[in-house]
C-alpha cells in the first residue's frame, strides 16, 4: 500500500471540454433492439460524446479546458508552476502534450511540464503527483494545472461492440494550489498497481492501427477484488469511516462495476453521483466531469469527499480530501 498524506494543497477550479457530437447506444449497428436495451440497462450508458474528425489532436481539447480554468480562476499565467497531462491518446509519441500546452497557453518557461501515461486512475494519481511537487518548491504559494482525459474513440475499433458502447471522449483541466498557510487541507492517498492485470485493457496492433481491447469480465473482477480494499485501507489509514464521507466520486466505469463497488464499501448509493447515462466512461476525465455536473451536491465549505479511480494497468488510486469552494466552469462543447 502506497499511503501518503499531503497538507496545504487544494483543488481551486475544474473545467471540462467535450466534442459536440453525441452518439446513442440505442442506435448501435450490429445489435438487436433488446440487446441494445439490455446494454443500456446494465452498463448504465446511453450516450457517448465522440470526436468526428479523426485527425483531431487532443491538445485542442486540453487547450480549451486549461484556458477556461485559468481564466475562470483569474490566475495570472506567470503564477503557474506546473502543467501535467495524463492521457493515453496523444497523436504523437514525442514531444509530450504538456510541453506543447506550455507553449500554446503561453505559460512561463519556468513551468514544469510532463505527461503521465495512465487511464482511468489518472485523475487521483495526478492529484498525488501535483500535491507532492507543489510542496517541493519551498514557495509560500504554488500553482498547477492538471489535465486529464482521452479521445478514446481514436483507439476504438468501429465494429468492436465491447469497447465502443462504453467509452466517451472528454478532457478536464484542474487548477490546484499549495498555500503554506492552509492548514485545513489535508489529503490521504492510497495508490496501488496490480500489473498482473496489464492485459485486461490494452491495445492490439493491427496493421497501422492500435485498437483498445477490453476483457469486460476481468475488468469487473479486478475492480471488485482490489478497489474496495484500496478504499477501505485509506479510510483506516486516515482514521475515518465511510459514513464520515459526504460525497463519493468514483471513476465512471459502468453501472455493473460501480454498483458493486458501492455495495462492497457499504456506502449510501445516493452519495455517489453518476454521469454514466449521459456521458459514458470518459476515462481519467470522469471524476472531474462528475464533480462539475453534480457540483450542487457539494456544500460551499468544508466537504470531506472520497475520489477513487481504477482501470488500465491495472491501476487503482483513492484519495480522501477536504474541499472548500471550487470554481466549477460550465462544460465546453466543441465541434471536432
Amino acid at each position: 500500500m502506497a499511503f501518503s498524506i499531503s497538507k496545504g494543497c487544494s483543488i481551486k477550479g475544474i473545467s471540462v471540454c467535450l466534442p459536440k457530437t453525441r452518439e446513442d447506444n440505442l442506435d448501435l449497428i450490429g445489435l438487436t433492439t433488446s440487446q441494445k436495451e439490455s446494454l443500456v440497462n446494465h452498463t448504465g450508458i446511453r450516450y457517448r460524446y465522440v470526436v468526428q474528425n479523426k485527425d483531431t489532436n487532443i491538445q485542442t481539447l486540453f487547450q480549451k479546458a486549461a484556458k477556461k480554468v485559468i481564466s475562470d480562476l483569474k490566475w495570472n499565467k506567470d503564477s503557474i508552476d506546473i502543467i501535467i497531462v495524463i492521457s493515453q491518446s496523444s497523436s504523437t509519441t514525442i514531444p509530450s502534450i504538456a510541453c506543447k500546452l506550455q507553449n500554446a497557453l503561453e505559460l512561463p518557461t519556468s513551468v514544469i511540464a510532463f505527461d503521465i501515461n495512465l487511464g482511468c486512475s489518472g485523475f487521483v494519481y495526478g492529484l498525488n503527483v501535483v500535491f507532492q511537487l507543489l510542496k517541493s518548491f519551498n514557495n509560500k504559494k504554488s500553482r498547477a494545472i492538471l489535465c486529464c482525459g482521452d479521445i478514446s474513440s481514436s483507439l476504438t475499433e468501429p465494429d468492436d461492440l465491447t469497447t465502443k458502447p462504453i467509452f466517451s471522449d472528454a478532457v478536464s483541466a484542474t487548477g490546484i494550489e499549495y498555500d503554506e498557510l492552509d492548514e485545513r487541507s489535508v489529503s490521504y492517498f492510497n495508490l496501488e498497481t496490480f500489473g498482473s492485470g496489464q492485459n485486461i485493457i490494452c491495445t492490439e496492433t493491427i496493421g497501422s492501427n492500435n485498437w483498445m481491447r477490453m476483457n469486460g469480465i476481468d475488468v469487473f473482477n479486478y475492480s471488485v477484488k482490489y478497489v474496495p480494499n484500496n478504499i477501505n485501507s485509506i479510510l483506516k489509514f486516515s482514521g475515518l469511516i465511510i459514513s464520515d464521507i459526504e460525497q463519493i466520486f468514483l471513476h465512471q466505469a459502468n453501472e455493473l462495476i460501480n454498483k458493486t463497488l458501492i455495495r462492497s464499501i457499504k456506502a449510501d448509493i445516493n452519495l455517489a453521483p453518476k454521469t454514466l447515462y449521459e456521458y459514458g466512461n470518459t476515462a481519467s476525465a470522469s471524476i472531474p466531469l462528475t464533480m462539475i455536473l453534480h457540483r450542487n451536491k457539494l456544500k460551499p465549505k468544508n466537504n470531506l469527499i472520497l475520489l477513487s479511480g481504477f482501470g488500465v494497468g491495472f491501476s487503482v488510486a483513492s484519495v480522501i480530501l477536504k474541499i472548500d469552494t471550487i470554481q466549477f466552469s460550465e462544460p465546453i462543447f466543441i465541434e471536432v
Partner: protein
Amino acid sequence: MSEKEFLFFTAQEFNVEENSINLSTNFKNLSVWNSLNALIYIASINEKYNILISSNELASSNSLKELYELLKDK
C-alpha cells in the same frame, strides 16, 4: 447452494424456463449467451454468492455442472 438452487438462479439470469436447462447444458450454446450477458451473469454470481469467476475459468467451463463445481470449490 444446492444444484437445484443454482439451476433456478441460472434460469432466472438467462430468462429461460427452469426445465429447459439442466447440469449437462452447455450454457455457451444458449441463444441468449453473449459477452454482455456473460458479464451480467458473472456480476450476478458475485452479488448472490460473493464469488468472482475469471474469464479463464469461465472459458474452461462448458457445462453448468462444471460451473457449479467451480462455484462450490471457491
